[in-house]
């Protein structure tokens, strides 16, 4: 593997998330194949996961904050093993933001209340601090005027930006994006990708992004992982992966995607 080379400049720092032999077996198929995935995610890096559907990308992402319980393997968050039974996973999850393909905004709450709910119930912040954060994150995603609208009144792109804002308000240490633009019209993906780029360039967030947006991945990724049929096939810098793919299966996948476009 090329892991050594990729991590040259990060070898001194402690990984934010470390996965050892993660393996997931659903009732009828292996989502992540044995012997499992090994992965390290370092602070301030943008890790992009690509691969065809059913290759276990989303499963891997969801296992990392235990929205799906892994069958076996260990996951460490800042050195703490979060797969052990004794850990309170809710305490860990407040540090890990997650943005979904289907936005998953709470339909019965206004945009403002969507952002306020976790701040009130999870972080238990005082009211003035909550209002400050709500304003701040909505400004970041350029949606301050939609504060009192319901999610049902917004476009898909706006909903996804609110979902990002909701995650940002929690001040997480890293954010997972699970195909954030796949459910959007092509003309609306731009606004979401722009917000994500800002997160990287201005705020230096650690991101893990599952996406099919190759140009976006090329631009912001610091490392790319290619998954196929439940295993990590290739891992490397975006320039290597996209411009000069050394792996046969990766080449096939990329040519298929570019054909579609």
């Amino acid at each position, binding site marked *: 593997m090329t892991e050594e080379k990729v991590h040259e400049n990060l070898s001194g720092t402690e990984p934010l998330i470390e996965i050892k032999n993660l393996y997931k077996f659903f009732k009828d198929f292996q989502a992540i194949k044995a012997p499992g995935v090994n992965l390290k995610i370092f602070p301030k890096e943008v890790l992009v996961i690509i691969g065809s559907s059913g290759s276990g990308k989303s499963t891997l992402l*969801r296992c990392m*904050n235990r*929205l799906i319980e892994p069958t076996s393997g260990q996951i460490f968050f800042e050195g703490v093993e979060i797969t052990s039974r004794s850990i309170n996973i*809710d*305490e860990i*999850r*407040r540090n*890990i*933001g*997650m943005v*979904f393909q*289907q936005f*998953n*905004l*709470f*339909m*019965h709450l206004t945009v403002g209340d969507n952002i306020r*709910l*976790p701040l009130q*119930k*999870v972080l238990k912040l005082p009211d003035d601090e909550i209002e400050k954060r709500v304003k701040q994150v909505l400004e970041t995603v350029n949606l301050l005027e939609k504060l009192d609208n*319901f*999610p*049902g*009144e917004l476009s898909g792109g706006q909903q996804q930006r609110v*979902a990002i804002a*909701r*995650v940002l308000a*929690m001040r997480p240490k890293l954010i997972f994006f699970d195909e954030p633009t796949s459910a959007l019209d092509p003309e609306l993906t731009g606004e979401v990708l722009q917000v994500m780029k800002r997160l990287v360039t201005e705020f230096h967030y650690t991101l893990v992004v599952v996406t099919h947006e190759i140009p976006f991945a090329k631009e912001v990724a610091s490392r790319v992982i290619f998954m196929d049929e439940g295993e990590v096939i290739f891992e490397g810098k975006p320039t290597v992966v996209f411009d000069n793919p050394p792996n046969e299966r990766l080449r096939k996948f990329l040519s298929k995607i570019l054909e579609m476009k």
Partner: protein
Amino acid sequence: MENSNEKIEIQGPLSTNRRRRALGFTNISFGWWILSIFVLLIIIGFIRKIFTPNANYFDVFIWIINLFLMPFGLSLGTIDYRAPIILRGLADGASLTFIISILSVVVGFFLAALLAIVLVNKNHLYGLKILAQMYVDFFRSTPLLVQILIVYFGFAQIFGNIIRNLNIPGFSYEVFAGTLALALNTAAYQAEIIRSGILAIPTGQTEAARGLGLTSSQTMRYVILPQAIRLIVPPLTNELINVLLNSSLVSAIGVVELTKMSQTLQAKYFLWQVYLIGALFYFVIAYTLSKITKKLEIKLRIPGLGVAND
């Protein structure tokens, strides 16, 4: 051009339609006016009941009929000597029917909420889930009349004397057993309704809430239930009306509610029309309840999760 057109219309004499609309009497709102008046009268009936225990909730309607007949020098009694007695008796029965069904639906709802939360749980909860499932299966798969009889005779030894000793006027053991049986029955049906409402909320909502760090009970309370409530209002309305109509079965254990009262009066006067008036009472109550819940449905509506369509 368009502006001047509008002005002419406004300055011109109001058409009948316009005048009606100005007063709020449109075709759509007409039903609401009738409904509001009806609800107001029931409220008056309730207040009167507090001060005069002998009164019933629908007395006011008999007054109104009399009021309309007064200009002609008539009253219900002079048209037909049986009319005031029949109406008064049926109104008494309707009051009891109304109270029994509302009480059993409310009690049943709380029981159903507990059952539903147990039923949607992924864990077995030390056999609690199987018990809840057995409860629901039993009450949905046996006739209501049989359930009423079981409750009536089954609890007679335990509760019979206690309730007789309480000595509350109008609250006999029969009424207690009938209400309890209806509540237990509707709880099973409502549990399934609430369960379906909870399951109808997309799993993405749970994922998002848990992903933000909310605990599973917080997710249920702040995210799932508020949305499920909006989905289950129409089927709950159905159940409410079902209970109201099914409450006629408690006449079998001697509760003198609307159906039993109709039977008694019919037997007294040999007048089949008594049943017709009884049916009218049922209709008015059921129709009112359905209209009120429709209003509730529209009140609870939110964009993107709407059920009501007007």
